């Protein structure tokens, strides 16, 4: 028998179009390489099978109706900052969200009238790395791919302003501590509800308690002490800082008890605060309210302590984070104030929640409002779904706007059409604390008071001057 060698195909690039040139295979071949002719048919067969499979897949996806699965759970999505610049806040909010989901599921879930049964909550969350673009992608993916029923918006004005247009476009109902900048409330979002309250003009949750406290100085001023009558407002020159400074000035003017003698914006990238401190020392205001970033707080108060500024009677940052205290030390913060945005946090229910969270995540400090806002996001959503009897975003919006709901942060609340909670006399209910010894002592309002205000502070004793 004569053995006949199989026919071969030779790749000749210089000849231009080759039979196999449209296949990626040909790109790996050099001139003169030999391919079995059978291989050519095999490749064609594989391509045909793959093409047929893809066509069938496309046809079934597009035209064949899928059987409707019965609703078994309510899917909640949360794009959370677990790393990057906002990891601190994001982690605490997530702890609150997790506890709320567990608490509601322990009771069997949320009763949804349109399904005639209780549905458990299922939480999916994804780290945004505190990156705006990544956050937008995650939000879109959660809505279109994961098909979440409800969404908790990412924390922070930058992220809220970037993602709320997406959630509105898909009519996704959201509740959470998101954007507090003015633009959020004037944008007219229908399905976005914020836990961060506003005051007066617009976003004013921060510092409102400090200003309420100052306005009522006659109720806490020690006999014979000089009253705080002049205020310097310092804020970082960014959307939020400018907004906060305006609101502070508005509130101070509305009360008409103090006078604003300095309203100064500083560059958020400032590393040296000595010019600002020099101005303060020259003007000698009774009170300084400082609204800044974490870096700003640390650097400003470090320098204030280093320069032994004794001309000011009261220093108000917005809120001391435990990491600030750990970094600066109690000594540097002695007699400085802050405010606790969690106005119901002395409530036994809130205290029990904090205790549970502290035990679950040891080494953390769950008295922060971020934690409560996470809990409230899920808790308020669950109440809205039960009252609406549906997951329809319009029905949920109607409930939010017409009914009084319960919250951990504020107690009973109602929402305004702009989507923020209306909390009457907010600035007179926010706990104000003073650093006394190694503790943050609540000195205001009277019904929550743990100790008396140290005023004016004994700077001579503190600084040895």
């Amino acid at each position, binding site marked *: 028998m004569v053995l006949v060698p199989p026919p071969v195909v030779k790749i000749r690039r210089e000849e231009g179009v080759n039979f196999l040139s449209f296949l990626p295979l040909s790109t790996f071949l050099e001139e003169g390489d030999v391919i079995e002719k059978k291989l050519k048919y095999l490749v064609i067969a594989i391509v045909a099978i793959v093409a047929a499979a893809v066509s069938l897949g496309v046809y079934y996806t597009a035209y064949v109706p899928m059987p409707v699965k019965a609703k078994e759970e309510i899917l909640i999505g949360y794009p959370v900052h677990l*790393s*990057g*610049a*906002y*990891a*601190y806040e994001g982690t605490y909010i997530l702890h609150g969200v997790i506890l709320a989901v567990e608490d509601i599921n322990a009771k069997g879930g949320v009763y949804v009238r349109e399904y005639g049964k209780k549905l458990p909550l299922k939480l999916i969350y994804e780290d945004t790395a*505190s990156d705006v673009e990544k956050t937008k992608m995650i939000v879109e993916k959660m809505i279109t791919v994961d098909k979440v029923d409800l969404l908790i918006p990412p924390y922070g004005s930058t992220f809220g302003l970037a993602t709320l247009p997406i959630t509105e476009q898909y009519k996704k109902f959201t509740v959470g501590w998101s954007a507090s900048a003015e633009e959020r409330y004037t944008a007219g979002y229908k399905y976005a509800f914020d836990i961060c309250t506003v005051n007066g003009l617009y976003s004013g949750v921060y510092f409102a308690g400090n200003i309420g406290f100052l306005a009522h100085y006659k109720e806490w001023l020690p006999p014979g002490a000089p009253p705080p009558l002049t205020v310097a407002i310092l804020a970082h*020159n960014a959307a939020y800082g400018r907004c906060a400074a305006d609101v502070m000035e508005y509130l101070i003017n509305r009360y008409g008890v103090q006078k604003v003698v300095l309203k*100064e*914006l*500083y*560059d958020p*990238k*400032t*590393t*040296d605060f*000595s*010019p*600002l*401190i*020099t*101005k303060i*020392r*020259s003007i000698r205001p009774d009170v300084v309210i400082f609204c800044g*970033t*974490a*870096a700003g707080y*640390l*650097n400003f108060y*470090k320098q204030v302590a*280093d*320069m*032994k500024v004794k001309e000011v009677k009261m220093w108000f940052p917005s809120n001391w984070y435990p*990491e600030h205290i750990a*970094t*600066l*030390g109690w000594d540097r913060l002695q007699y400085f104030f802050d405010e606790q945005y969690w106005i119901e946090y002395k409530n036994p229910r809130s205290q029990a929640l904090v205790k549970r969270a502290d035990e679950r995540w040891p080494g953390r400090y769950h008295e922060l409002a971020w934690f409560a806002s996470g809990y409230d996001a899920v808790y308020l959503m669950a109440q809205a779904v039960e009252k609406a009897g549906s997951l329809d975003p319009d029905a949920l919006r109607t409930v939010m706007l017409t009914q009084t709901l319960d919250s951990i942060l504020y107690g009973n609340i109602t929402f305004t059409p702009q989507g923020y909670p209306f909390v009457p006399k907010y600035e007179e209910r926010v706990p104000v604390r003073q650093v006394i010894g190694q503790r943050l002592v609540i000195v205001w309002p009277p019904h929550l008071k743990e100790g008396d205000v140290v005023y004016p502070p004994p700077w001579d004793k503190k600084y040895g001057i």
Partner: protein
Amino acid sequence: MAYEALLTSLLYGFIEGSLYALLGVGLALALGVMKIVNLAHGAFAVLGAYLLISLSASLHLPLFITFLLSMALVGVIGLGAYIIVVDKVVVHELSTLVTTYGLELIIANLILSIYGGATLTYSLGLGTLSIGGVVVGFDRLLVTSIALASILSLHLFLKKTYLGRAMRAVADDIEAAGLMGINPKKIYAMSYAICALLGCLFGLSFVTTHYVNPMISGLLNLKAFVVTVLSGGNLVLALIAGITLGLCETTITSFVLPTAYQNIVPFTILLIALTILKRKRRL
């Protein structure tokens, strides 16, 4: 009070300025010797600061040893980065810009992943001193002394030692230096390591008087860049430029402009200086 305010501005301006100068000389050295704009300079500063914080928290060694250890580590990382990455592209100006920017991003993001985005500071707890009624921390005076001493030492090193002269020779004419038996590759590597060390020294000084976070390296690069451009790579001029910037920043924003313009001041000075220099050259 006006006298006290002026003295405060001048004193704190001088302190800030000496730190700017320390930051600027590292970048000036890279530009002068290797003709590259080292955009990883700020990242080495931040890396040094984070190493100080983590080493002092974990090893509990005396502060001086921790300082030296942090500097040594950053020096080695700088040298490694040069040999592995920068050396391959050092002759292409645009490539070095992109490469060092890439290095900065890698270092900043590694710090972000390991330490998170928290802002940190490190207190030396040295107490304070009153100078003419102005209170200033010993830590600030210490870092000012370190900055001035470092710049002076670097100046002497470049003028008086064989290695320093070799670096200057390479900066002047790389081919002639090669013909004289100097190995430019080694000089480049050493220069880059010294730049990293200077960056680290700035970071250590900065974190004890200010703060750091992983995002600050870009801002530090900008400030260093202003000093470098104003000095044209000359160390003595870098010192003068740094101190001038510090003084202008504090005095102008204390008495003339709102604090919001604080970071505009150095760039305005840079633009004015460049405009005048350009006009002089044309004339």
